[in-house]
């Protein structure tokens, strides 16, 4: 096969930027690249924040070590001990510290916790992360499905009493910060009316329960997660209702819906395949954004309900200055959110043929 001059020129120009450019234009690769870049930026940011801030955790630890030893340790001794604790060589130049840190991260080694020496950060995270994902995921999915149904209904019965009730209620509840709603539940339903045994519901599951696929255990974890789930459900519900309502209203005005009615399609088919399917599209992307937001909110919620998830652990780590753990948790949550976004991107491509089959140029 002969090589045309054009191909030679193309080959010569395949520098990093061209390769990067090619990635950037392909939708799936682009989403993946963005995901990796996001994780890298967050990780790097926290690395430098922890080491370079005035009064950084490393300095604080050194101070703490010197103080607790009542002068027995010199600054250098304390620094050496801190070095070991952070599992980085504080004497090495910063870029080497950074490279070795990133190397460890790539190998899945997030270091060890300060406090419980010898426990890996990874194992701590693995113990608490599922509970948060369970509560957040259940709450989000519930609010998403209920919100979509109510939003659709509200749009169909535009300006009815039901519509006003649902939209006003939804927007009021969603403008209340979720942790304040949590506080109100604790105060009013828990302390004042004593309808909910707040103290019993702490933790991810009851003491003495054996994890496993038993009905008891599953019931128990739902019992313990019920308050966080309720909060995530209630505070997200309004957003879904309002978004779905306006997306449905927009879809109802579309020519293809009028055309479908002109074709005599049944209302059921029009609602599901013509109105609903198109209205839900923009909400898929919103779902990913909501994941990040709700996961962040979980920190405060878990604190209020004392639910043993990653948020509670993160705060404990912050208060105990267990920085490797803080860093690890941040990395993992970022990854989780980024994956959710990636999934949403890919799902969107599948749901909307106009995106998925890019390149099929119109005439």
């Amino acid at each position, binding site marked *: 096969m002969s090589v045309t001059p054009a191909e030679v020129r193309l080959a010569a120009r395949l520098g990093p930027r061209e390769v990067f450019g090619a990635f950037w234009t392909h939708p799936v690769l682009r989403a993946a690249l963005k995901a990796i870049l996001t994780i890298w*930026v967050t990780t790097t940011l926290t690395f430098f924040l922890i080491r370079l801030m005035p009064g950084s955790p490393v300095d604080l630890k050194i101070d703490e070590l010197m103080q607790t030893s009542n002068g027995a340790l010199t600054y250098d001794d304390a620094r050496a001990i801190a070095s070991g604790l952070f599992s980085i060589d504080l004497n090495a130049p910063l870029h080497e510290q950074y490279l070795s840190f990133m190397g460890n991260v790539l190998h899945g080694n997030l270091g060890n916790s300060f406090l419980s020496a010898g426990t890996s950060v990874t194992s701590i995270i693995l113990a608490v992360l599922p509970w948060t994902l369970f509560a957040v995921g259940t709450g989000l999915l519930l609010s998403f499905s209920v919100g979509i149904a109510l939003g659709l209904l509200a749009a169909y019965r535009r300006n009815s009493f039901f519509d006003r009730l649902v939209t006003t209620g939804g927007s009021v509840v969603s403008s209340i910060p979720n942790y304040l709603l949590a506080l109100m539940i604790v105060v009013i339903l828990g302390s004042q009316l004593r309808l909910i045994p707040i103290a019993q519901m702490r933790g991810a599951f009851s003491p003495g329960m054996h994890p496993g696929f038993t009905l008891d255990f599953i019931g128990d974890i739902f019992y313990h997660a019920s308050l966080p789930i309720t909060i995530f459900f209630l505070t997200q519900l309004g957003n879904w209702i309002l978004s779905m309502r306006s997306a449905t209203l927009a879809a109802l005005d579309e020519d293809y819906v009028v055309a479908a009615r002109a074709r005599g399609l049944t209302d059921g088919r029009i609602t599901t395949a013509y109105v609903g399917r198109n209205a839900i599209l923009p909400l898929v992307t919103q779902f990913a954004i909501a994941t990040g937001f709700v996961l962040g909110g979980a920190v405060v919620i878990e604190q209020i309900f004392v639910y043993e998830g990653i948020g509670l652990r993160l*705060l404990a780590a912050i208060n105990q200055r267990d920085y490797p753990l*803080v860093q690890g948790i941040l990395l993992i949550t970022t990854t989780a959110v980024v994956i959710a976004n990636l999934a949403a991107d890919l799902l969107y491509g599948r749901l909307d043929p106009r995106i998925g089959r890019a390149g099929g140029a119109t005439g």
Partner: protein
Amino acid sequence: MIETLRLLSRRPVALIGLGGVIFFVLLAYVAPLVVSLQDAPDVTSVYLSPSLAHPLGTDYQGRDVLNQIVHGGADILTVAFLAAFISTAIAVTFGSLSATLGGRFDAATLGLTDIVLTIPQLIVLIVVAAIVHPSSFLVMAVILALLQWASLLRQVRAQVLSLKERDYVEAARSLDLGIFHIIFREMLPNMTSYIVIHFILAMTQAIYAQVGLIILGLVPLSGENWAIMLYFARDQGALYFRDSLWYILSPILAIVLFQLSLVSLASGLEDIFNPRLRAA
């Protein structure tokens, strides 16, 4: 402006929102000038129920709750306003620059924006706040702003991109009216409504994040504010006492009502500025 107010007056929700916002601004900035701060503890009157002397009861140290509510708004509102201002300024400046300059600057801004949008912002905020320990309004506002400029930037950029292609902007270019005319006379007036609405929503976000951080105790606690009241209410276990109801509910309601006012004002304005409604 007058037109806006006239339209506003026809929307009860927006009007209630506007009234609420004005009420809270007066409460936070003017009322403290009238009512002096009473922060002396009085152990004989802990957790009193509402009465004429203490319309909202007293706290765990016997201090008047209403007095604290009056004095506890300014900090929250100031930080929220500053944060919204900074993030809006960043978003508008870089969003329009990005759209106007295009090329690598645009690509870089857009890439960064995409990344910031994907990061779980509140968690990063918690970690950053824990490390930085923001002790001044400005630092606090900057940290909050740094995490919320991204979505507005994308929208401003999209707006400018679309405005740039409008026929009337092209006409202004070909009439050689100059870049200042194009930006300040042709484009910005078409974006103000949009920016105002997002400014208001940015304030609600800043309040959400700010109060959350304070309740978690991640921000140095000094002075009086609604969020600090809640922090101490939790810290002192007031959540679990039956007679502390008003002490806890007061700051919660203050924050919630202010948020609600902002949100209804924003949605009212949105209705008003919506060209479809306006044309009708």
